[in-house]
């Protein structure tokens, strides 16, 4: 489904990785592993199309994502280090706005349902900056229950989550993969059993 060919990434005149190729097919969870500074985030950002690689292409269903970005973006869900929520708006406002921008039709009841699953009931009207780091992460993660996307690219999604949150997220990833979706994720802790089967992609730190 998603294929990367011969990607090379240079940051600050240092080659992070060179000629990296990977392929993910429907129903696969890819766990990108590597030490700090190996270029995990850069790789994921290239896969989303946010940054352009020094050389190489990313293909989605055989088409270059640089050429057919709209069809790819409509089925892509990317969560980065930054949560993408404005601190002075409430969780509910943030999510509503995000859904509108991504042109996702969503009933109010679905929205509340997602907030309930992620454990934010009672906090939906509080400005996001008053929430704890873990709760803020949960607001960002609520999108996984809202946008019907096939490709999930999640950069360090477990950061700041408690044990329960991690289990919830791993379960969500597993069910998404079982439904034929694709998940590409990074994490410093190894994925547990709850995330289901997954393949591992190793990035080395280069000098």
């Amino acid at each position, binding site marked *: 489904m998603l294929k990367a060919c011969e990607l090379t990434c240079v940051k600050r005149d240092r080659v992070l990785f060179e000629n990296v190729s990977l392929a993910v097919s429907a129903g696969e969870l890819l766990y990108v592993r590597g030490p700090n500074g190996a270029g995990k985030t850069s790789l994921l950002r290239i896969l989303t199309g946010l940054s352009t690689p020094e050389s190489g292409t990313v293909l989605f269903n055989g088409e270059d994502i640089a050429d057919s970005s709209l069809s790819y973006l409509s089925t892509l869900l990317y969560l980065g280090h930054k949560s993408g929520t404005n601190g002075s708006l409430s969780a509910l406002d943030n999510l509503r706005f995000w859904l509108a*921008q991504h042109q996702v039709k969503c009933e109010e009841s679905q929205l509340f349902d997602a907030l309930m699953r992620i454990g934010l009931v009672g906090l939906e009207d509080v400005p996001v900056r008053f929430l704890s780091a873990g709760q803020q992460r949960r607001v960002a993660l609520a999108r996984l229950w809202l946008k019907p996307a096939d490709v999930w690219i999640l950069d360090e999604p477990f950061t700041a989550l408690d044990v329960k949150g991690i289990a919830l997220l791993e379960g969500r990833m597993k069910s998404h993969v079982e439904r034929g979706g694709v998940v590409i994720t990074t994490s410093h802790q190894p994925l547990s059993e709850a995330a289901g089967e997954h393949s591992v992609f190793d990035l080395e730190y280069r000098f």
Partner: protein
Amino acid sequence: MSLYQGVFKRDVHIAFKQKAELLQPLMFLLMVVTMFPLGVSPSPDTLQRIGPGVLWIAAILSSLMAMERMFRDDFQDGTMEQYVLSGMSLAGISAVKVCVHWLVSFIPMLVLSPLLAMFLNLTFDMYVALLATLFLGTPLLSLIGAIAVGLTVGLQKGGVLLALLLIPVFIPLLIFATSAVDSAALQLPYYPQLAIIAAMLLLALAIAPFAIAYSLRVSQN
């Protein structure tokens, strides 16, 4: 279209939640203008002569302070990434954000302008000319400024750099705007100056959104 309306509403909403950030540049403007009678001379003639220049310089300086917040929050909290991935046109979003920035930071300045004109002993004709130049010139400040803000938004200390980049670019506007007010003081027609400012504004309107989108992408990379 309603997508961009959504961005507009959200940005206005957020701007009004951060009133302090909107008011501080205005207070700065007021205080800079106050320094001139104290530092140069309180004589009405002198003030009238330097008034247009003082007002415009103060307006440019205070707008430089307010400029940074145009993309800063969205960039730092990751909203910008999500904009890029939403498939909306980044140039369109930039245009909306510039528009909001102009509304929330320059309209209050226009409201404050009668007071400043009074402080600097401008005549009524001069004030009308000043208002006209501000109406045409401040959107230009926002549009051009946004390009530089887009370029420096990823940097930790962009504040002084932003001024360094923008002040030389704003000089023609300063020249034409102050000369329009000067002409009004002499009861001369000042349409040519206004027409030139309007021409610059139209040029910026046509090109700047794309330049802003490009610079935001560069910062995102």
